[in-house]
């Protein structure tokens, strides 16, 4: 599923690694804003 060799990657194309960081930071922001509360384990 990687980019074809001959197609230059868009500058907005992030690795899944970076998307994981964005998702985690977004989740932290939602917790801080009280949108996500009481996550049980």
């Amino acid at each position: 599923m990687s980019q074809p060799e001959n197609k230059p990657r868009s500058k907005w194309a992030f690795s899944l690694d970076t998307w994981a960081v964005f998702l985690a930071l977004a989740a932290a922001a939602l917790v801080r804003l009280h949108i996500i509360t009481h996550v049980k384990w």
Partner: protein
Amino acid sequence: MSASSVALNPAVPASSAWSRAFRLIPGILLLIAVGYAGKFIEQSIAHYTKAHHITAPNIEYVLWAILIGLVLANTIGIPEVFRPGVATYEFWLKGGIVLLGSRFLLADILHLGGISLGLVAIEIALSLTLMHVLGRIFGLGPKLTALLAVGSSICGVSAIIAAQGAIDADEEDSSYAIAAILALGAISLFTFPLIGHSLHLGEHAYGLWAGLAVDNTAEATAAGALYSDTAAKYAVLAKTTRNAMIGFIVLGYAIYWASQGRAKAVGNKAAFLWQKFPKFVLGFLLISILASAAVFTKPQLTALANLSRWAFLLTFAGVGLRTNIRQLFKQGWKPIAVGTIGEVVIALLTLSLVYGANRFFTL
């Protein structure tokens, strides 16, 4: 294919992006089902033994999730429809590590990170030397040896994939090295906690050892979690320190192979380092800084820690589901032999390093 090598590109047509996202759903649901089954089994056994006043050792959900995944993958196999979603286990791992940053105060990271960094530097130097010596003794090709050395000294599969491109190694060499590292990672999941308990290692010392000695980040986190929650925290910290070194080591190899005329020269070294640097380390530090600055309340920190646990649950399910034992044994005995001897020696060396650090510093 490693999930980390997958790129999401908003430049592609929306329908294609949606269909790609849609293809991930079955596998992600499988990760949730396997992970939750592990948690359910742990809780059911705990309730049963408590209700019937039976004393039994608690087998953590981590082990159940990995075992269920292993059994499924190696008996009925993973149908094609589930594979893209199962490959996202690394995505959940990185997200979980970033959120785990909320459980570390920055001062702890600087203290333990400093100790880890010293230990990691020694571990990398010893591992690289050892694997090159073993590769020469067993007559492995120089690039396969380099891949095994990078995989065992830094961070398993991601490091091998990064190094493969940088030194123009064959696909076959890379799959040999990955198979060996994964096989040994799976074995370490079962041996490390047993050794840790038999040596009565403290949670901090054990966590540091697992983070230093277990190669793949997912397995290092699982090996820590199998010991205790705190051990998992320390394993992640030590492993993250190792991961941060990936760019420097791969750059060193790339420059060496280019000087031998057997790989392309590296142009902009700073850009190369940034490209190889694992970005989740920055996210982990950022969340830790926010937690240290009291941006989150106590219940919010608990919520973040629990979100991190859920993300790890999917990761552990993925560890079992992507381990194909039959395929590992098809790869030939030499890379496995080099990897096994190397890993046993590295495990012993890092154990003595941790013992030494435990004596001179407060871990």
